[in-house]
């Protein structure tokens, strides 16, 4: 079994059960002028109301749409609903949306193929962000040595190491 690993943490006595629950607050930009104080004591938060109303609205809209799309005309007539948009759109709009999504995906993937550089392109091995390795300071101890800054290794050197077994 694994031996217990020491946790290198500045707060070793941290306990999740005892810790006060952190409040993650996100301020609305419009509330900047009214100060940054939390207003948890004044009724429900607007986001809760919006969520509640949004959820109910979604359910009601879904029911209305399904009734409009599937209920026979005679049922609607008997209830007293005599005017409603043409049922053609109940089929057309979802189909338009789905076809648009598929075409957007196809267009995006095609765009990616267009932006792929050719195998002979110089951009596959070099570009404006390429950096040469800096000279290293071997005098520092291993633990003291900083992690090398980001840099590119040339393709010629990589080929030598990979295929010619050069060290």
């Amino acid at each position, binding site marked *: 079994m694994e031996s217990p690993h020491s946790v*290198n943490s500045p707060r070793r006595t941290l306990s999740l059960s005892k810790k006060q629950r952190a409040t993650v607050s996100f301020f609305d930009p419009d509330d900047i002028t009214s100060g940054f104080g939390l207003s948890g004591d004044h009724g429900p938060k607007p986001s809760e109301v919006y969520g509640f109303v949004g959820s109910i609205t979604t359910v009601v809209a879904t029911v209305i749409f399904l009734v409009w799309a599937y209920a026979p005309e005679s049922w609607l007539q008997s209830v007293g609903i005599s005017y409603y948009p043409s049922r053609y759109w109940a089929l057309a709009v979802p189909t338009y949306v789905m076809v648009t999504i598929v075409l957007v995906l196809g267009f995006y993937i095609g765009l990616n193929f267009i*932006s792929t550089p050719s195998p002979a392109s110089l951009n596959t091995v070099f570009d404006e962000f390429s950096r040469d390795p800096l000279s290293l300071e071997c005098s520092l101890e291993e633990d003291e040595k900083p992690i090398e*800054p980001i840099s590119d290794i040339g393709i010629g050197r990589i080929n030598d190491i990979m295929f010619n077994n050069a060290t």
Partner: protein
Amino acid sequence: MGDSPPQKHRILMVSDFYYPNFGGVENHAYYLSQCLLKLGHKVVVVTHAYGNRSGVRYMTGSLKVYYVPWRPFCNQSTFPTLYGILPIIRTILIRERITVVHGHQTFSTLCHDALLHARIMGYKVVFTDHSLHGFGDVGSIHMNKVMQFTLADVSQAICVSHTSKENTVLRSGLAPEKVFVIPNAVDTAMFKPALERPGGLEIVVVVISRLVYRKGADLLVEVIPEVCRLHPNVRFIIGGDGPKRVRLEEMREKHSLFDRVELLGAVPHAQVRSVLISGHIFLTCSLTEAFCMAILEAASCGLLTVSTRVGGVPEVLPDDMIVLAEPDPGDIVQAIQKAIYMLPEIDPQVMHNRMRELYNWRDVAKRTEIVYDRASKCPNQSLLESLSRYLSCGAWAGKLFSLVMILGFLFWHLLELWQPADDIEEVPDVIFSHNCDEEMLQKS
């Protein structure tokens, strides 16, 4: 049972955020990769193309980076296509003989897609979350649902602070025992205090962050005039750029603080240290932080930190190295005053030495190695076992998620028929020894 010999992992790191982009996620992925390479593992990074930077690059320490030609769509994230990335991810996984896929950052579409497909193909998957997200706004609600989907079958997850772990567990429904807390670290050898602290009666407060709403630039606009009024010997240096910079310029004009507030603009990461060591106090006013890397860098340079008490910030430093305040201008002003009174007792070199012990990238790499070992020991699961987990994500969403997984499974088998795994050539390893360093030294 006996302890098995340490296993060498072959890790694929996936994120939309990587060099030449700069930020916390980019630094984290790079430094972690370098330390894992030094431990003997193989690391490959997959990200999308950045302008002309497309194709395969070898970087420091033989870190291989695939810049997949996939256009960024919004804030450096690619467009979600669900299955568009599967063929190329599959090819990379087979070519490099990957054993663990490590995704970074919630808002990385490439990361979510890759985790999804890696799970379909039976690879072990680890996810690192770098940010806190809310529960109330529309964007967060949708993002939490996506996270619930992609993390439903993840092997292990990593968060950068305990607050971040709590946030991630609540958002994604992940089992808490699957989530490890591994903080960010700082390259203490790069961030050293100045040999001599800037002397004189002047006290310099340094701010380095993007000037956006989330980083509390509006708080800064109200804090700086008040501190300058109360303490005539205080000066501010502000590094960073962003949409809120105009407000800071207006604040300077309004209160005639041109000689006491210096705006540097964007500061390259290589020059951050030279800005930090010119100050005594580091100030950050973020409204939300999972973990604040800038605080580590400042503390490593010997600066006393003043920060808002948000997210994971209280976990970062001991109490004698940081002064915390509520995200309120008056409270921040008081915290800065308290920091000014604490300043004579601060020894930058002592603070730096403590930071070197507390936050070290090699320590982070060792902990991440433990997570990889745990992920490797997770039992393999068939598609049917995974589907039951996806179904529990919700009444309608669960079925939708299961459908997506089934279609992905079929697509994968279609690719297996079209291009069998045996036909894909494996890449020879690049062995970088220490002799190369000396050879490079001779060449330069």
